[in-house]
């Protein structure tokens, strides 16, 4: 194990094989077996027919033909994309000023504020969604508060079981995801750039539009991605506050592995979702490169 010090070319070169193997083993098992192999199984299953057995039968593209030809799946996919897109837009736009304040104005309160905006991230997702259910319910918080203050006479059903409820709930649940990437991007903009802009006569808004905003775009894109990915596949929020009119693609996948019991078809739907996400990631990558990524 021990090697003679002094004659080494580089410390990295003398890592012992045993140490390397032991250190790579746990992570290697998890990443290759639980992530790559499991995802490979999904892709494999997507090309099989459903005969009730675990891995299906035959080799067929029928599942994808169904997805492509049945208008139901187009409707649901489109709805998932619109809902996830709106949620992403809402969270990023509302998070940007907060990140801006944290980066440029927070001063001594910065650490406390950073702590406060990240804390909800670590609380139960189920409970955050549940909170909105009691807010929006027919005999819930919002209705009763409006009646109590005399704004309305009768409780309304208009809040719960709508796609709008899904958007609001998801935007709230994933709000903490968006702030941190934008904050990091803003915080790493060299202060000399801002000074140069104002020295050269740029008004504050111009300097924001031409210097700060383009330089923070990598953070904005990263934020959009970490909000979009979990929301586009979500099935809990539509089930809790969305009602039948808000069925999302995650709901369909879940039911294929539950009540509908057609695993190969559910796998095909999952592959389609992953392809959509891949497209979004590639678009974000391209946009990132256009803005000159600093990460």
């Amino acid at each position, binding site marked *: 194990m021990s090697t003679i010090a002094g004659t080494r070319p580089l410390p990295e070169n003398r890592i012992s094989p045993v140490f390397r193997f032991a250190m790579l083993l746990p992570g290697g098992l998890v990443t290759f077996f639980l992530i790559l192999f499991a995802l490979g199984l999904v892709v494999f299953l997507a090309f099989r027919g459903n005969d009730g057995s*675990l891995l299906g039968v035959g080799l067929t593209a029928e599942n994808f033909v169904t997805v492509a030809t049945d208008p139901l799946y187009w409707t649901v996919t489109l709805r998932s994309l619109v809902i996830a897109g709106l949620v992403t837009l809402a969270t990023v736009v509302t998070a940007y000023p907060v990140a801006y304040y944290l980066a440029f104005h927070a001063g001594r309160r910065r650490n406390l504020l950073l702590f406060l905006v990240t804390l909800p991230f*670590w609380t*139960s997702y189920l409970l955050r969604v549940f909170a909105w259910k009691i807010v929006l319910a027919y005999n819930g918080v919002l209705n009763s508060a409006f009646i109590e203050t005399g704004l309305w006479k009768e409780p309304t059903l208009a809040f719960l079981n709508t796609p709008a409820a899904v958007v609001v709930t998801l935007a709230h649940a994933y709000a903490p995801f968006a702030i941190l990437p934008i904050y990091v991007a803003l915080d790493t903009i060299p202060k000399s750039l801002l000074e140069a802009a104002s020295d050269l006569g740029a008004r504050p808004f111009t300097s924001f539009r031409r210097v700060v905003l383009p330089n923070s775009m990598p953070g904005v894109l990263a934020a959009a991605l970490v909000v979009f990915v979990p929301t586009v596949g979500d099935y809990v929020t539509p089930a809790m506050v969305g009602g039948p009119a808000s069925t999302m693609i995650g709901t369909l996948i879940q039911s294929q*592995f539950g009540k509908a019991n057609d695993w190969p078809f559910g796998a095909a739907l999952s592959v389609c979702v992953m392809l959509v*996400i891949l497209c979004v990631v590639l678009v974000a990558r391209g946009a990132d490169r256009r803005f000159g990524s600093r990460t």
Partner: protein
Amino acid sequence: MSARADINSDGRWLGVYVLGYLVFLYLPVLLIPLFSFNNSIQAAFPLQGFTLEWYRTLYGNPALSDALANSLVIGVIAAFGATLCGITVSYMDLYGRSPLAATISAIARLPILIPGVIVGISLLILVNLIGLGPSRVSIVLSHILVALPTTVVVMRSRFAAIPKTIREAALDLGASDWTTFRRVMLPLSAPAVLSAFMLSFLISFDEFIVVFFLAGTEPTLPLYIWSQLRFPRSLPTVMALGTVILTVSFIIAGTAEILRHRGLGAARRNPA
């Protein structure tokens, strides 16, 4: 001077906005504790008076205590696994200098780009294939996976903050890789290790989307809550339970964040 005044007034308006944002962030969640003390079966205004009745219903409920015990055991084991993987993956990514180590580290952060429902079904297929089926072992495996990106990010930033010279000095003085790792690098990152452990415990403890597919006959706490949501009568009990969970989550997450930043601050103050 006028530019400076502009910036200050900007800051004031932004400050008001941030305050409003925090209220939006916390208000819906804080309704759960508020109504858990409300003497009514419905979560609605006006409040009907203070009661601890709903907290009393939490005691002596065997289904609930079984779910809690399950969640605690699964959380601790999964946190141990995720932290171990996070430490080794990020250490080898930074110091292993091999393409394999870099690849593993990149894949370990991949679950961020996969929706939970797909992680859930892919593991459901896998555990059925290897004969585990939906079970506690399967849940532990899935939670190691779900918590892995977090532990890798936490440990990687911590290892990167330790001055390179410290590790090189240890190796120069004849310490083996293993000794350098165990006696030098690991103690220096102890606060981050603890932080990663606590955060991955929390992730496992609160996780619902993936565990939904993998639970056999023994539900975890979030699954128990989900099963109770069907019954309007158990709403107040769920809110009391939710309050307890939120309180514990806030304490654990707060401690983990403090540990993470305190550790880093100390490393920067005394770089050698």
